[in-house]
């Protein structure tokens, strides 16, 4: 297997991971697509040696069809995932006007409560303050 295939995989993974870190959902979706392709190339590159297409009637050394079947399935699944992510991004856009992932409100409230307790000492427990 050639070194170039692995270079390609590395580039696809790097680009995909970078895009996954973005806050914008459209870029996350693109990242999923790119990283998915990276995985597909990885399976093809490591899974089988080059050869003739594995079809009845072909002569010579045939390539192993199983990794190709795996990759075909992975492509179909990736297609569905990408569609779903795009729908999510579209929905997010209709609600908030952008396609960015928001913060978790409940999580921030807990943090604030903890800070409050720290500041005020152990006497007024937040539960008692609120009831």
């Amino acid at each position: 297997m050639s070194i170039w295939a692995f270079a390609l995989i590395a580039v696809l993974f790097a680009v995909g991971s970078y895009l996954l870190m973005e806050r914008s959902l459209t870029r996350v979706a693109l990242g999923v697509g790119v990283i998915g392709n990276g995985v597909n190339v990885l399976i093809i590159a490591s899974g089988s040696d080059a050869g003739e297409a594995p079809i009845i009637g072909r002569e010579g050394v045939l390539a192993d069809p199983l990794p190709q079947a795996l990759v075909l399935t992975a492509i179909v699944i990736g297609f569905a995932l990408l569609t779903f992510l795009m729908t999510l991004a579209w929905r997010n856009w209709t609600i908030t006007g952008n396609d960015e992932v928001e913060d978790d409100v409940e999580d921030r409230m807990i943090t604030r409560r903890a800070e409050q307790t720290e500041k005020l000492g152990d006497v007024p427990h937040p539960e008692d303050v609120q009831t």
Partner: protein
Amino acid sequence: MSSLVALPILIPLVAAALMLVVRNLFAQRAISFAALLSSLATATAVLVDVWNTGDIAVSRLGGWPGSFAITLVSDGLSSVLVVVALVVTATVLLFAVGQQTPDEHSPYYHPVYMALVAGISQAFLAGDLFNLFVAFEVLLMASYVLLTLEGNREQIRSGTTYVVLNIIESVVLVMAVGLIFAATGTVSFAELPERIAALPDGVRMGLHLLLLIAFGIKAAVFPLFSWLPDSYPTAPSSASAVFAGLLTKVGVYCLIRVQTLLFPGELSNLVMVVGVSTMAIGVLGAISQHDMKRILSFHIISQIGYMVFGLGIGGAVAIAATIFYLIHHIPVKTSLFLVEGIIERNTGSSSLDDVSGLARKSPLLAVLFLIPAMSLAGFPPLSGFLAKFALVRGGLSAEQYIGVGVAIVVSLLTLVSMVKIWVGAFWGEVAPSSLNNSGGVLRQHRSMASATAILVGFTLVIAVAAGPLYEFATRASDQLLDIERYISAVRSAS
């Protein structure tokens, strides 16, 4: 018997397809129940057969010979988990129908729910790694849709985190499958153990770690759990009940397969440390939370820790305890989420600030909460006590005193946080903010209440039948540890 193995996957899928054509809500409900009950009947038939004969039922799709066929394998562990999963999904469906929420009225709810059931059954029955990956994708895709079906702001936000993290998990999993195929030339569970054993140590460890990370994200173990308490609470109650009860357990099931079949006994110290820290972190998170759904979500993590700990100890006793824990935990956790769903439906909130005095308003609801809550905390004579007792015994016999100590402390802390819900929601005056103060909470939500009661009854049955069930778990664990038997069962299947 082997021809029945595939039916718990096929029947729900056919039902899902049918319901995309038939879009009448009442017809959809009827089809869903019929599909679940008939799958349950076939799964029970397989379980009874496996129980009586001690054999492993194998079905070859397509009737191809050798390692060409896609195999479905139903050994003791798989068959019992499929039955438990179908019981839980059927009762949750009854609950969802009674809930009268907009998402159940959507024409997509029932088809997607059936796809989820098919994915869960397939994951338990899969006889090769790639089939397992496909099963994961089926159930994950269904869970994405169920989680975001209402499409409101909060669901989209948490849904995004959930979807992206699970996609990363899928990427790691498919990478692991691809690399394992590259290293060994097969993905079949029956061929893999021998070929993996022949690999060099470094390669073996790398592949093992990839699988552990993929399934660890799914099972929400210690460093990889943060998506769970964020996403489950925003799902509709019926969906989060199924997710809480079943989805993480699919991850645990896969970890069991990895640790017993593919990489028997390897990296068990790592697994044990992960299990112990998952227990502790999960319960500490639960104590700091102030919303019922979030407390319960953190409890899932903590309980997963127990199972992973048992798996890390290894050996017939501890693995039997883990299997028993798994069987007990699925209905208990689901019924807690269902009780929470009734509370949320009745009062309009799941925050402990807004809800109080439920014990006076509805004593029966209090009982329905108390039984699974005490079971989760490990009170005798409930099933949780037996599960924890078995696990502690396994830990002591393996001389893992630190882990056992942590397990006991965590069990006490679980009780503390359950008391927090009890004091906050059930004691005290009836809150003025409750939407509905006329009393008779359960009478208003008859089918939700009966679904919850059925499930709580199921947990009691597990406690009563603990003797034979534990014996079965022991046999299932012997079966798991006897890899040769699995291989020969798959190879000799016709």
